[in-house]
């Protein structure tokens, strides 16, 4: 078993050349439940999108279990924000869950009975087996989130990256989900969760990554959940850093000078 699940090295991500994540450098341990915490616009979602190769990196690199993303893609599962899809889409809960198996079976090979069993098992763990054939348009917010998590479970990954799985869900779902995430980490899985609620953060997670454009702190809750760190995270942005970031957008100036040659 690896000890480091995820290594983020000098990661900078810029949108229209303005850095939204700046030189983030962290190592996240395997087998832990890890929360990514920070105010709105801190770059939390961007961080896990960058890890999954969904947004391009301006500098730095990410290693998952010591390897490039493409080498270990099957061992990683990503749960997008619930609002990112159209829930009027004409598919059933089971259809969505089976998408998790595509990561293993591929885009063209036939799904076997085992795949259906795994998907059904994932639904059962999320308490959604009764809804397997239900169309997603008819689900509540909490059920939609459970469906997304079932899809991730069906991927049978070792590392899970979840974007705000607790946003807009009912208390019962939140409780069920956190229990499940705990079970998963006990079985050696690593779960990284973007979380917006500071109150529950300390009790939910083993480790925290505090983020506000730059990395504030990263480590076990006891070490990093301190008033000073929280003040740094939530006490506003560094004005000089913000000014420089805005200047980069205005001048269309890249994050690394070598990138000037490319355009």
């Amino acid at each position, binding site marked *: 078993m690896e000890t480091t699940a995820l290594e983020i090295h000098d990661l900078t991500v810029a949108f229209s050349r303005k850095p939204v994540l700046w030189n983030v450098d962290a190592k996240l341990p395997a087998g832990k439940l890890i929360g990514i915490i920070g105010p709105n616009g801190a770059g939390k979602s961007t961080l896990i*999108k960058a890890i*999954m*190769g*969904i947004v391009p990196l301006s500098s730095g690199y990410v290693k998952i279990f010591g390897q490039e993303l*493409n080498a270990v*893609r099957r061992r*990683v*599962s*990503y749960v*997008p924000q619930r609002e*990112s*899809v*159209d829930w009027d*889409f*004409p*598919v*059933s809960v089971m*259809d*969505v869950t089976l*998408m998790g198996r*595509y*990561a293993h079976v591929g*885009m*063209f090979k036939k799904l076997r009975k085992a795949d259906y069993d795994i998907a059904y098992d994932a639904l059962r763990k999320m308490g959604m087996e009764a809804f397997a054939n239900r*169309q997603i*348009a*008819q689900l509540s917010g909490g059920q939609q989130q459970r469906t997304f998590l079932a*899809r991730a479970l069906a*991927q049978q990954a070792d590392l899970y990256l979840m974007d705000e799985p607790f946003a807009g869900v009912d208390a019962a779902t939140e409780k069920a989900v956190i229990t499940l995430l705990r079970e998963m980490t006990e079985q050696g899985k690593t779960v990284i969760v973007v979380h917006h609620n500071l109150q529950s953060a300390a009790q939910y997670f083993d480790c925290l990554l505090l983020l506000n454009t730059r990395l504030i702190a990263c480590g076990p809750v006891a070490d990093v959940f301190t008033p000073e760190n929280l003040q740094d995270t939530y006490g506003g942005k560094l004005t000089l850093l913000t000014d420089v970031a805005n200047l980069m957008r205005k001048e269309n100036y890249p994050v690394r000078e070598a990138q000037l040659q490319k355009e």
Partner: protein
Amino acid sequence: MQLTYEDITILATGSLIAWSCALLGSFLMLRRMALAGDAIAHAVLPGIVIAFLLSGTRSSPVMIAGAATLGLITTFAIETLQKKARLQADASIGLTFTFLFAVGVILLSMLAGKVDLDQDCVLYGELSYVPLDVWITSTGTVLGPRALFITATLFIVLLTIITITWRPLLITTFDPVYATSIGVNSVFYHYLLMGCVSVTTVVSFELVGAILVVALLIAPAATAYLLTDSFRNLIILACGLGLVAVAGGYFLATAVDASVAGSIATVNGLLFMAAFLFSPRYGLLFRKKRTAIIH
């Protein structure tokens, strides 16, 4: 009423086009690219004219190649205007297709008289001519209406492509971000789909016209979307509705002696209106009633 050989040929050709359109239209609608489909349907005009200029023939493979090229150029241009020139999406679509269509019309007027292709055919199309244009082999055997062969081939090809790429198409349509996270190349499937739309458009061009092909692409899919929650059923239902519209449209056109393509679009519109009002789950009347009960 007795169906003649001509009637059957026209209905069969029309249905095959309607099915091809329904297959693609369902994806276009769910990907929120209905208007990109509309744009491609217009923008392939210069492709057809240029293909004719270069090759001097109106043979289908050349025309299809020309139109498919323009379709991909349109798709690329719309994206480039958005990304590089930072133009908003709706304006990018409008600017691209009107420019290409205008170029097509100008090219056409330069060719005036030299080619049997004009704006009328672009806008209307004419299904009634289908039985007249037959395919004759070099040995003189009459194989049957050319359009029927072409539309049948098109439908089989599209059905094959969509069956094979069903999974990536579904996943890039429903959740493109997740698709990227499991390593699916969504850009490839975007262009694949738009390429299919351009080919379908050009095949439909002479038969139903550039604007009415939009009705066949979008209307049956939209109607079906109000009737079912399953993607597979949506496509099957859209094909069925397309068939009904083609048959209904053809008989309406015959009855009042009007344009077949226009009548097909009109029947499509009526079918949508019926679903919009009376769909058991999503119809306006039943929705109203349900909310009334809750209150």
